[in-house]
């Protein structure tokens, strides 16, 4: 009897939610966002190093920036891939999940807020893919991804002659010049930091409350549902 068959026998109902590409996307993204956040923070607030080295022997700040730019490319193309997967992936990956254009989505969001924030008891079956609030948050996240990318490449356009950043050369004038664009880019970093804290906590939290395997789902792809609740819903 394999593992899943055993699980099948249990009271929890396993379901394959996250396809491999989504999982790959997620972990690449998580990694580069951390790298971008850390290097970005250093670029914004470089530590004071008062050694007696001559400038020509040092390049650490240049290296930090280089890492930031490399990570930026990875981040961007990884994200583009995810957008693509939003059209061809399974139903959990579909872009429709993210944009709250139906009433039901908003109702669900309210449910999640009740459970997560106000700690009201929930009778409804939790969503299988992202819960409604989470997916809305991801939707906002994607918008910030886009903003961060365009502001980043916008200011990068002045530093790189290659054609790709040049596509973004017009961006700073939209935000009122390079100064303002760069400040926006800096401020948005904090969105990522806050998102990461809340996101990781909530993932563990839902796992704990719902025991649905959400934490490991981003590794293995499987989530679990309470069979009782599934039955109850059917009635």
């Amino acid at each position, binding site marked *: 009897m394999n593992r899943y068959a*055993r*699980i099948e026998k*249990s*009271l*929890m109902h396993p379901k394959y939610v996250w396809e491999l590409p989504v999982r790959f996307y997620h972990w690449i993204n998580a990694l580069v966002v951390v790298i971008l956040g850390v290097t970005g923070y250093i670029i*914004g*607030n*470089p*530590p*004071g*190093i*008062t050694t007696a*080295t001559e*400038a*020509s*022997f*040092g*390049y*650490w*700040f*240049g290296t*930090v920036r280089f890492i930031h730019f490399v990570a930026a490319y990875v981040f961007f193309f990884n994200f583009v891939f995810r957008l693509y997967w939003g059209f061809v992936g399974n139903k959990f990956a579909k872009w429709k999940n993210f944009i709250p254009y139906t009433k039901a989505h908003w109702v669900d969001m309210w449910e999640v807020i009740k459970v997560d924030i106000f*700690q009201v*008891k929930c009778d409804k079956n939790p969503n299988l893919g992202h819960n409604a609030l989470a997916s809305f948050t991801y939707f906002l996240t994607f918008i910030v991804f886009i903003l961060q990318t365009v502001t980043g490449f916008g*200011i990068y356009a*002045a*530093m790189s002659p290659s054609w790709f950043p040049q596509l973004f*050369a*017009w961006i700073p*004038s939209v935000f*009122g*010049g*390079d*100064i*303002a*664009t*760069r*400040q926006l880019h*800096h*401020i948005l*970093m*904090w969105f990522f*930091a*806050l998102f990461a*804290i*809340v996101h990781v*906590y909530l993932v563990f*939290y839902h796992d*704990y*409350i719902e025991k649905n395997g959400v934490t490991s789902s981003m590794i293995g792809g499987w989530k679990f549902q309470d069979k009782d609740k599934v039955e109850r819903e059917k009635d």
Partner: protein
Amino acid sequence: MGKRRKTYLEAAMDKGYSRRDFMKLGAMMTAFMGLESSMVAKVTKAMEKAPRIPIIWLHGQECTCCSESFIRSSHPLVADILLDLVSLDYTETLMAPSGYQAEKSLHDTMKNYHGNYLLTVEGSIPTKEQGVYCCIGGKTFENIVQEAADGAKAVIAWGSCASNGCVQSANPNPTGATPIHEIIKGKPIINVPGCPPIAEVMAGVVVHLLTFDRIPELDRLRRPKAFYSRRVHDTCYRRPNFDAGLFVESFDDENAKKGYCLYKMGCKGPVTYNACGVIKWNNGVSFPIQSGHPCIGCSEENFWDNGGFYKRLPNFPGFGIESNADKVGLGLGIATGVGVAAHAVVTNIRKRKLIADGECEQKDVE
């Protein structure tokens, strides 16, 4: 008028230059403009044919530092520009006549050279209260600019005032100070930002127009690429210190004495497009960073309102004094952490309660 205007060659010969000297002048300008020497013949030819172009230089909401900068030009020398290259027919700062006679100079040029003069504007245009915040001869400045732009061949917006509104348009912009390109439509406009622009950049723009009889290549903000396509940071001689992470930590500290990078003192060089690092100021003597002060971004739109000159981030509105995005972000981060911890505790209590109530018996999965 009727009389044919003199070409540069004639003017130069009158001035006592020989044709050979004239070729040399052409070569100097060509070198100055960064062209290959094969262009020399062409440049010289263009100047031979062009008459002294009439210029109308209007003054709106400004501090006249752009005029002051202009007269600092060392190549070409401003006396040579005024006597031999252009005909500066109207500028309140230097012209001999006042009042009616001054207005006559303005109108003569507008009429006699309709379609052929260059309009240059120093200062912004106040638009609030129907423009009463700047009047000359009883007319609003907006009105005067409109009228003068009508017959202009091209318009140059001198300095940050005319090209992006500069200091008087800083929050709350009490007079509705507006840059030229938002008022004048349908004319080629060249923005030459900077507070003020470098003298040789101003002269360079004029020389370009005269020599090539065409507008220099502009970027999307209508700035001549020749002078505004590079950030100060890209041509800053302190750049190796930046890359090596060697920064001035406070004014006049050991690092300042060594000429380290001024990034942490709020330097806006990385976000400012200007030629200060290469052309430098006052015939190459120095530029702000070389003299120990961070760049304040004086050629950038809105540089007054993007936070302080000694900070890299603006104050965050609504979060008290001296709070920038980092402080607010860190605060929110800590608050979130605390919230998360509290939430976790509550969750645990609740879960224990559920277990105690038997509502949530521990199910054996395996």
